[in-house]
């Protein structure tokens, strides 16, 4: 094939062919690029611009006026902001702390090759298919103090005002979020655990390591980068939880579950203050990027380093 061409002329020839080919290929990306620019990139830039403007969200574009730092000033001095950040961080921390061990343990379980575990996985993954709205609606009905499962079973313990008291509401929210997302993260862990070489476990067995020791000395260290990936997805994902909180509590009781994403929606689309709402949206993007970079740092700079030393 190409060996017919003498080596000297080959380089130039191929470069010419490549650039001609690139030109003919370039237009193939244009439809995707146009959509991406129009509905993702431009909005990202526009939300920054809007955070310096006043707009009520009802009148058309000509009513938008530049007000400089007004929105930022009102948002940053509003005591509701530290509260919303606190709620966001609380939900983030609690759901991370609950989901991570649960996902690792379930991941270990379904990484097993037993046939019944494969069958159980069929059920495990069902929550991944349901919309956040459907899940929140189900739990709202299930936990209702009048029509839910508590009064149905005549159980006082289960008949609580689950979504009507601050701490209970946050607890329920963390549980529902975990119910939805633990399957996804255990799926990630399952894949990673199956990659761990069996020889490591055999060596540990020969050395007389017990089951717990094996888990803490081999499985967990081998999962280091998976833990970081999964935690990044959990932490950054929890910033933008909207449907599940909105349907479950609408930010209530009072403002107990009003996280940043809800704060943005309520300010923008309920109070018609698009300027301050945009400022919060900008904060959301910045916090998300910051957390992602921070977690990457924690994971060490060289994520490609071998985890297989000594194998």
């Amino acid at each position, binding site marked *: *094939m190409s060996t017919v061409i003498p080596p000297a002329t080959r380089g130039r020839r191929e470069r010419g062919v490549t650039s001609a*080919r*690139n030109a*003919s*290929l*370039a237009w*193939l*990306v244009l*439809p*995707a*690029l146009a*959509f991406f620019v129009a*509905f*993702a990139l431009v*909005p*990202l830039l526009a*939300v920054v611009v809007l955070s310096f403007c006043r707009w009520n*969200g009802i009148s*058309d*574009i000509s009513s938008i006026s530049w007000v400089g730092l007004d929105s930022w000033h009102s948002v940053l001095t509003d005591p509701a902001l530290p509260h919303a950040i606190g709620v966001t961080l609380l939900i983030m921390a609690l759901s991370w702390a609950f989901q991570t061990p*649960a996902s690792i*343990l379930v991941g*270990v*379980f379904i*990484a*097993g090759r037993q046939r019944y575990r494969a069958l*159980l996985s069929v*059920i*495990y*993954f*069902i*929550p991944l*298919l*349901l*919309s*956040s*709205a*459907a899940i929140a609606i*189900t739990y709202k*009905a*299930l936990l209702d103090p009048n029509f839910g499962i508590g009064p149905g*079973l005549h159980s006082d313990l289960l008949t609580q005002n689950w979504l009507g008291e601050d701490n209970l509401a946050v607890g329920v929210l963390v549980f529902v979020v975990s*119910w939805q997302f633990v*399957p996804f993260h255990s*799926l990630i862990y399952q*894949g*990673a655990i199956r990659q*761990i070489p069996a020889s490591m*476990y055999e060596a540990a067995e020969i050395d007389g390591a017990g*089951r717990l020791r094996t*888990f803490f000395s081999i499985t967990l260290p081998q999962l280091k980068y998976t833990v970081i*990936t999964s935690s990044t*997805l959990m932490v950054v994902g929890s910033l*933008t939880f909207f*449907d599940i909180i909105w349907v479950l509590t609408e930010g209530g009781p009072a403002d107990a579950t009003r996280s940043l994403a809800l704060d943005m*929606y309520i300010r923008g689309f309920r109070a018609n203050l698009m300027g301050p709402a*945009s400022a919060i949206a*900008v904060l*959301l*993007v910045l916090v998300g990027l910051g957390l992602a970079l921070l977690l990457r740092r924690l994971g060490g700079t060289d994520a490609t380093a071998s985890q297989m030393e000594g194998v």
Partner: protein
Amino acid sequence: MATTVPTRTPSRPVPPDPLPRVRGVTRRRNWFGGLAGWAWLVVIALPLYWIVITSFTSQDTYFDHNPLVPTTHPTLENYQFVLDAGFVRYFVNSVIVTVGAVVPAVLMSFMAAFAIVRGGGGRFLTAVNGLFLMGLAIPLQAVVIPIYLIIIEMHLYDSLTAMILPSIAFALPLSVLVLSNFIRDVPRELFESMRLDGCSEWGTMWRLAFPLTRPALVTVTIYNGLTIWNNFLLPLILTQSTERRTLPLALWSFQGQYSVNVPAIMAAVLLTTLPILLLYVVGRRQLVSGLTAGFGK
């Protein structure tokens, strides 16, 4: 020749090991994992079981029977009630929005991924690829206000198209990533021989790359389909009238209206999930691999 092409991609979970003993992580008893596994199964299964049995319980008997025991007189009245409440319309809306967004999104992503892989070193295509990678970090929630403004200015507010357009844009970054990873695994010699046979890039794309990329195309189609089918925020912000609602939003307002009628709400939940559950029964493997698209390493 084409039959020997390796179509494995790093973005898919490892296929079941033909030799279970080779990587036998669990040859010894693992009490913790086992306990957690069974406990979580109960946590997952109990609400699902409750949804199903409640949806067949009549509204009259719901309050005076044990909610965890299936009713002795199963009824379809709740489903009838839900269908009468306009869910057929919402269902059709959801289908239109999902198909209308997924098909163009997947085709455009495929074309873009093909160009990015084939045009390797080109400056423009490298920049475009970088842009899509950056796009993975843009959360939809953070840019809904400008999207709302753009849709109003396009005079598309309160239409199904209003939900389709941003859905396409937000499906692109991950789809391009997954598809380009996959196309990169196609041996260069195949492209080269197509070129020597005088086939254009356009022809190569559809006749060689498209069939070879089918598993990844199925994966991104399913992933995007699920995401868009379940989207709540876009209909919430971009529609107003009842007849433009898609299922998740309709479900929410249905509960707001009939919060006392728990059996009907559960029938509605089940109905809105039915197409996905059917898909799950038919193509579980593709669905599960679609869910972790881009993460399995």
